[in-house]
């Protein structure tokens, strides 16, 4: 009896928690959408309205002019393409290099494992702005084209991340798997990609998604490396170049519309992969 009651209370708290978290995480995005559907006059009216309303009559009034303006912006539309190419390449490279490295660091015995881990992490321990000048010098010296230079420089933060996360996952896999494969006559490398790698799919999807989004949203490097080659500009740079008709005027509604547009493909991506995120679990097996 008591058990049943406490279970019900537990259920209520569980759902309440979900609702609170959900509001906190989603409300700002809702506000972004509402803002993108307002004209400037609706934006600056007081008090702010939760649904776009006319400043005078207070009737609901929605405008799509911000979206129109965004899609007429060539730099932005091309930016989505560029961002997709760059982020995809970065993610693939980071996952391939990262899983190689992580397997070595997590499952193989050799000297300098800890040192290698720290060395790799140290790539990402400076603020971006302070490595930018040196990086720009390297890129100019090797005359690397804009998109390639973004792909390479984003490895600065995606590679350490994938390696560290994947290493922790490889380490969790029992050593017996590797030994069994060795006994069966497989080389260590075969054991890696035929036995161990498939087991880390959820981890790969997770790190891949996080790395993809990090690359998608990078701004400072992209601004500098694409400044001359404007055809290579990525979405965040294109958005920074949004401006009003007149200097100093900030087209806030358009920026919000653009951010809704760039977020949607990422959400579709997450939806496609979300089942894989929890692949290792038997559904419902974990009881709270």
């Amino acid at each position: 009896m008591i058990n049943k009651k406490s279970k019900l209370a537990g259920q209520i708290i569980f759902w309440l928690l979900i609702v609170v978290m959900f509001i906190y995480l989603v409300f700002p995005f809702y506000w972004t959408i509402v803002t993108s559907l307002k004209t400037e006059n609706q934006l600056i009216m007081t008090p702010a309205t939760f649904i776009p309303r006319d400043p005078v009559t207070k009737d609901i009034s929605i405008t799509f002019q911000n979206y129109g303006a965004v899609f007429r912006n060539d730099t932005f539309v091309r930016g989505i393409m560029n961002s997709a190419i760059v982020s995809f390449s970065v993610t693939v490279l980071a996952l391939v290099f990262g899983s190689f490295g992580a397997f070595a660091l997590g499952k193989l015995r050799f000297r300098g494992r800890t040192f290698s881990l720290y060395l790799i992490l140290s790539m990402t321990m400076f603020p971006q702005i302070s490595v930018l000048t040196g990086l720009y010098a390297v890129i100019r010296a090797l005359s690397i084209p804009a998109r390639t230079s973004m792909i390479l420089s984003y490895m600065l933060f995606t590679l350490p991340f994938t390696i560290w996360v994947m290493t922790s996952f490889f380490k969790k896999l029992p050593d017996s798997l590797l030994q069994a494969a060795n006994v069966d006559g497989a080389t260590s490398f075969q054991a890696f990609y035929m036995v161990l790698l498939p087991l880390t799919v959820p981890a790969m999807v997770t790190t891949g998604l996080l790395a993809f989004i990090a690359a998608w949203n990078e701004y400072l490097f992209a601004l500098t490396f694409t400044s001359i080659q404007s055809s290579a500009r990525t979405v965040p740079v294109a958005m920074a170049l949004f401006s009003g008709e007149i200097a100093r005027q900030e087209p806030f509604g358009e920026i919000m519309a653009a951010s809704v547009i760039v977020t949607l493909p990422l959400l579709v991506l997450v939806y496609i992969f979300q089942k894989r995120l929890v692949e290792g679990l038997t559904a419902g097996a974990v009881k709270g």
Partner: protein
Amino acid sequence: MRTTKVLALCLVLLLAGTFSITAGGQQEAEEAGPITLTVAAGAVGQELVLAKEAATAYMSMNPDVEVIVLETPDLTTDRLGLYLQYFEAQSGVVDIYQIDVIWPGDIAEHLVDLNQYGAASVAADHFPAIIENNTVDGKLVAMPWFTDAGLLYYRADLMEKYGFSEPPATWDDLEMIAEKVQAGERAAGNQDFWGFVWQGNSYEGLTCDALEWVVSMGGGNIVEPDGEITINNPKAAKALDMAAGWVGTISPEGVTGFGEEDARNMFQAGNAMFMRNWPYAYSLGNAPDSAISGKFDVVPLPAGDSGRGAAALGGWQLAASKYSENVEEAVDLLMYMTSYEEQKRRAIVGSYNPTIKGLYSDAEVLEATPFFGSLYDVFVNAAARPSTVTAPNYAEASKIFFSNAHDVLTGKQSGAVAVRNMALDIEDLIK
């Protein structure tokens, strides 16, 4: 051995993949005419269109030159950051830079002395304050393109409603009117109404606003053109204390986080009596769907104890890069873009304030933008920020000034302490 091969293959494939994806864009950027000139200009809608039209016009006159207009971020620090990366690399990819009025001193060493290319003869036509600002160690490093100055916007309809006939001539008048209108409008039901909005955030904009208060009070120009640091004086302290007194009374508490757009948003929504802002807010406020369209006007900023008002000088210049491969052609284009005809076109089409004195009495210009005539005095007398005399440390000097002023506005220190701190810090910096 097989492992090695697999690995090598992966690497080669991936690298080849990325290079082939990215190779396409590169070629198109390198395609060039006989001479290519690149102009780094703003990304702002109309400004960009005007710049591109100028480029097209120039190309039709000079068929052997191709002009590329490059968009750069509207955010000033981002733009400066980008320029500095080019200068650090001594790169000639950009031939002409659009630069802020406070930059010439700081980046002069990368710019061409335009006097050597015959600019001296034209320079006299421009406002002397800007030419002086752009002259570093006797070298004219940038040509004025368009100018900007702080103005006082006021609600003419509310002036009438509350029985005031003249816009405020002094800060005292402004405080008095603002208080009365604010109280009246709030009693009438608009609880969001405030008397006076301006730029109080801790950024370069506050340097402009605070410099206007200090100069109008007779407190000097922070650092005088001869290098003397004059900010530590009671008049300057009084000016800052005066502004601190507005916060929470006639200006919202949040004004210490306001930039230009925050102030305009409030004024344009009909929630402020007065606003200090740049000329750009004029045409936006008069747009057909604006709540205050036709209900407001602009005048020079009020006078303080000195008996005169002061407006901070803003605006943008064009400069030619020393690292350009075609300096002569670049200067020619630059001189064209800042010429009488070009500035006239920009004034008529986009109400960009010309820097050439003669244009303020040009009939066609005055017809298009009537308020230019009455504000001629404001533009010609605008107070330049001490950027050239403190170069190459202006950014830090300005930061010392605005962050101490901000501390006065937020009540962390008194005006007297602030001006002393400013003087000491600026002395450490430039001595």
